[in-house]
């Protein structure tokens, strides 16, 4: 059942980038404003889902040749290593720290290790969502 969805596809091409950039914004700003790894991940995943709806699954897999299972694994590993990293400073598992630095363009920025952990969450969420959707979607 292929219909002519040219407008949908054209719009999608643009919108996907906007969504992804917005999701990245959500991810990074999560510590201060609404957002974070979980929402950011879901938002990114929904952008890819939009692609899936606009194009067929083969095209999307070819354009974004990402192994989502590996992505999940990487995310889990990052989260775990962030936790283990705290051992090296002789503090309990998953203790986070933060500090402020002055970056050239962005000005005074806070750097928190929690963001690293959140990156893990972000990757896991994308990985999991897309693994599920792709495996179900690919079966005929």
């Amino acid at each position, binding site marked *: 059942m292929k219909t002519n969805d040219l407008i949908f596809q054209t719009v999608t091409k643009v919108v996907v980038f906007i969504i992804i950039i917005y999701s990245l914004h*959500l991810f990074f700003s*999560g*510590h*201060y*404003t*609404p*957002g*974070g*790894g*979980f*929402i950011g991940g*879901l*938002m990114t*995943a*929904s952008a890819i*889902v*939009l692609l*899936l*709806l606009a194009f067929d699954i083969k095209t999307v897999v070819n354009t974004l040749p990402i192994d*989502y*299972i590996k992505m*999940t*694994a990487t*995310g*889990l590993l990052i*989260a*775990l290593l962030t*936790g283990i990293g705290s*051992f*090296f*400073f*002789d*503090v*309990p*598992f*998953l203790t*986070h720290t*933060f*500090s402020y630095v002055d970056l050239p363009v962005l000005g005074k920025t*806070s750097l*928190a290790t*929690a*963001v690293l*952990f*959140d990156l*893990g*969450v972000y990757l*896991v*969420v994308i*990985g*999991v*969502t897309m*693994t*599920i*959707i792709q*495996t*179900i*979607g690919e*079966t005929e």
Partner: protein
Amino acid sequence: MTLLHVAILSPFIFAILVPFLYKRFRNIHTGWFVLVLPILLFVYFVQFIDTTMNGDTISNTANWIPSLGINFTAYIDGLGLLFALLITGIGALVILYSIYYLSKEKEQLNTFYVYLLLFMGAMLGVVLSDNLIVLYTFWEFTSLSSFLLIGYWYKREKSRYGAQKSMLITIFGGLLMLGGFIMLYIMTNSFSIREIIEQVPEIAQHDLFVPALVLILFGAFTKSAQFPFYIWLPDAMEAPTPVSAYLHSATMVKAGIYLVARFSPVFSGEPEWFWIVSSFGIFTMFWGSFNAVKQTDLKGILAFSTVSQLGMIMSMLGVGSAALALDAIDDSYYTVATLAAVFHLINHATFKGSLFMVVGIIDHETGTRDIRKLGGLMSFMPITFTISIIGAFSMAGLPPFNGFLSKEMFFTSMIRVLDMDVFNLETLGILFPIIAWIGSIFTFIYSMVLVFKTFTGKYQPEKLEKKPHEAPIGMLISPIILASLVIIFFFFPNLLAYTIIEPAMASILPSLLGDENHFHVHISQWHGPNLELYMTIGVILLGTLGYYLLRKWRGIYRIVPEKLTLNKGYDAALYQLDKSSFKLTRFYMTGFIRDYLAYIFTFFIVILGTALVVKDGFSFSLAGTAPIGIYEAVLAIVMVIGTITVLFSKSRLTAIIALGSVGYSLSLFFVLFRAPDLALTQLCVETVSVALFLLCFYHLPEFKRKEKKLHFKLTNLLISLGVGTIVTLIALSANSQRVSDTISKYFIENSYTLAGGKNMVNVILVDFRGFDTLFEITVLGIASLGIYGMIRLHVKKEEEG
């Protein structure tokens, strides 16, 4: 986190690198890279000998979960160091040997070395942890990694069987042991072994003390293959020979011995400890050696021999504990047993390690391990023959090999049991030296079988797969080193006595030492013509006789029919378990999701409803509730309409969209109540799940409306009403009564100061309750793998079928 922690964890870290090394340097055997690590670790641990010799210990704590008293305390004392040296030293030799044993063309070397490293790290963790929970974690890790190693050739049915068996039994024991640990925690409020030891006088009369003792012994006995749990060890021989040499003789199986030694200061004041440990030990010693004689597989002989030797060490530890249990008798009287246990532990690692490697060589060079096919190999493999003579004679307890020394001390300690009349069981006490003596005769016989059936006698080339020849030199280095140690330890036993054995004994029997005191261990080769010597001569005479008349008395093995053996019992139990759990599962797993939902919701109603009634939890008050505005009312109505639409829609598409509208309305609720984070999340989840439905809904089975019988609908109605009522009740009463202050205040006050974040929800997720999140994403990951596996494997099956 100190260098010591890094050393313990280094095998795990290194394991991550192995696959990359394997891929990058395909033409270099991966073992060469791995070999570096145990050598470095060995050298690192050797430095600590100085410390432990002076009676000092080292303890470094890294916080893990301090609020629960769980910290990674790396602790080095004599006992831990002895094991650490064994693990790394034998580990290095085994890896060197495996480089020649496993061909880099045919085998998956990356997985092999990853498993081996995981095992090594886990083992180091077990022996160098002071915290019980950490110890337990590493302990189960050894079970897991050995499962992987035994099943390394996973395409073989027997490997899988052996791997499963070993894991079922050792993990079963490990879980019981955890129960024992928790009891210790309840009694002492500490997970630290040293702190527990300090509190022993106060807790010795506690009701849980003896149960804890028994449970911990379960862990030790399953791991160290004591009777009747030994049945996994012979099947574990399906693993590649380097693994057998490493896990099943030198290290993992000794974890149980380690545990008994480690807990001796805690429990050995109890007579139960002495009785259980020594009697199970001595019986295992006899049973293992008795069964070893009937084996025809070389590795089978060694497996049962390991069982027997472990039993022997166990019994000596048990008798040694009498030094603490008895006040009446001079301490030094029984310490010889502990000394013998420690000494034999080392000796066993050397001679059994070399024997396993020799058997591996025979297997490798002839293609079989069946003694009925082997024979006359002496002239083909002179070096291997020499090594196996040394190893086997040491195992049989003959001079001039180290096994002789510890065997004599074994006899001594068993004879000492006779003097132990405080238990008023002198009549039973006499059994100890007798069983020990008979067991030793069988030990002598199988040692001789091992060597002479293989290397002497008739050479039968037609039964061998390959033409036998001497092994490559690389494969011989490790067994030669071990065999040399066998001889060196005989002539210079006190080399070990002052450096290794004394500190280890100090850890096992700390209460016998005052301040600045040392054990004075002196081992001599000649102890004069006493009872022990006559026993040894008897062993040699009767053993030789038994070996030559083996054919005549072999028949006794047929007295016990195969059906009554423990193995059959295990298989039958496993089969029954499988069958009955399958039946049970079939009973409730109907394959209809609506049934499962019914179960879930019924439980939900029953448990929460009962809790509400029992706790008298229901109350209803409107105080403090916000007024209901027009938006809320409208949204609520939309949601209700959406839900009803789902119920009565004729097409699936309508149902999905109606369900989506409920979700979106909910997120609007979050917007109204100023929870932007939740609103966003709900919005995204809803979007993704609606899309997911749309994407795959035509895969779902056809949407049929079946007319069901009335009573079915009645249950559904009752369940849905029940769930609705319960949820409403809980929501109302939760809102009406506040038992304690709201915790949101804490988060409001601290999220910025402690975690540097202004978004409270995010701070809670990643920081305050980061552990939860870690587990949640793990669960998510597992779930996605499950779905992937279910669908992909299903598809594959269909393609094949």
